[in-house]
């Protein structure tokens, strides 16, 4: 994956917090998405779900203060908020597959213009299993991606069709990158916003898939 300027990264995360509404049940993937929780308005009460059997995940905890039996699905030591619940892995995924997960925010290797997501496998290089990724991508009511726009070789991660094995088909609703915010609507990519200091043309150039550009000026984030 690409590299991110610290300021851009923070702006991207702050902007993505607008996905989160009070009362939602949310699962945040490893990496950038997990950081969202640090930028949330504390007056907004959401229910963070973790695949290993928690609702009501609270802030991360330093090792010295950690409970050895309380981690999130990424292996980080966490706390719980009042109203938390613990349950087994079957119930945990029933929440996801049963339609009770309002939002998941995930990282990605590639997103295709039809909303296909590839974020679990690079054949021959990275193939260590999908964990709960397929269920999250396929069954959360809304799937939001946070990623760098380009990979470390400068290639677009937004592509006409995924070249890597996909995690789930036609599942992505919105993409937040360091350059733009893009919606996937009926297999079409629509540019919604561009990052400060980036032009619409630069976004188009950096995007391997066709991008629909609104007639009105595109807002900055």
């Amino acid at each position, binding site marked *: 994956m690409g590299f991110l300027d610290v300021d851009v990264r923070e702006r991207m995360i702050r902007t993505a917090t607008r996905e989160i509404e009070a*009362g939602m049940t949310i699962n945040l993937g490893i990496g950038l998405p997990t950081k969202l929780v640090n930028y949330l308005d504390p007056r907004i009460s959401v229910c963070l779900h973790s695949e290993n059997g928690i609702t*009501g995940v609270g802030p991360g905890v330093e090792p010295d203060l950690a409970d050895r039996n309380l981690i999130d699905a990424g292996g980080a030591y966490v706390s719980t908020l009042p*109203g938390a*619940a*613990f349950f087994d892995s079957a119930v945990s995924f029933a*929440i996801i597959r*049963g339609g009770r997960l309002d939002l998941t925010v995930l990282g990605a290797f590639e997103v295709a213009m039809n909303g296909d997501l590839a974020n679990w496998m690079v054949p021959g290089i990275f193939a260590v299993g999908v964990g709960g990724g397929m269920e999250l991508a396929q069954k959360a009511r809304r799937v939001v991606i946070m990623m760098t726009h380009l990979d470390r070789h400068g290639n677009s991660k937004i592509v006409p069709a995924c070249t890597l094995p996909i995690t789930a088909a036609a599942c992505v609703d919105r993409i937040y990158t360091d350059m733009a915010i893009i919606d996937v609507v009926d297999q079409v990519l629509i540019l919604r916003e561009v990052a400060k200091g980036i032009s619409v043309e630069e976004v188009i150039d950096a995007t391997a898939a066709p991008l629909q550009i609104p007639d009105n000026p595109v807002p900055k984030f």
Partner: protein
Amino acid sequence: MKDKTASIESAISRIKDGDTVMVGGFGVPGTPFGLIDELARQGQKNLTLIKNDANEESMGVDRLLQNGQVNKLVVSHAGLNANVSKMMSKNQIEVEFCPQGILAERIRCAGAGLYGFLTDIGIDTILAKDKSRIEVNGRSLLLEEPLKADFALLHAQHADSLGNLSYTATAQNFSPLMAMAADQVIVEVEHLLDLGDLKPETIHTPSPFVDLMVSLPTLTSDYGVLRRGR
């Protein structure tokens, strides 16, 4: 904080004619008599009810049956409610009988977001006659399909304001399964606790499954110990 508490009138008024409603309880324990009585009062019609049993005559779901609000009943048995046999024989109601554990699994299957499961339960019986058969590794099995509902009506001993539930003794039965399998889950609560008063390990139904909670101010005699001749 999204407030999940509601008045019993507004909660039950979400149910529409023709809806499918799951009702918790095995006998008296776990039956949400308060919610059922409100549904009887409001009078929604052409309902499909899914419940382990049909309670006893003049109690619980039998009031909905007697009111003519129910088209179809899916139960494991109706052995304690003679009214069901009467209504069946007069073609006033359609009844689907399902082996009890298969009823539980069909509800759970829907709740787990799955599309069916394979079993040999009942395979040699008349209950198998309309079911699809699937061959797996040379074994013929019945395909059981998930049972979903528009609403689940449940009774919980304890709940917190987020909607975490715990049930007591044999009042648990079908409730945690139904909580997963309905689009909207309405719970009557005996004791509403402060956030954090339920130990996270002891919660039977985690909060994301619960939509609305109604506080039960008093327990009617329906909830009490039945004194029948035996």
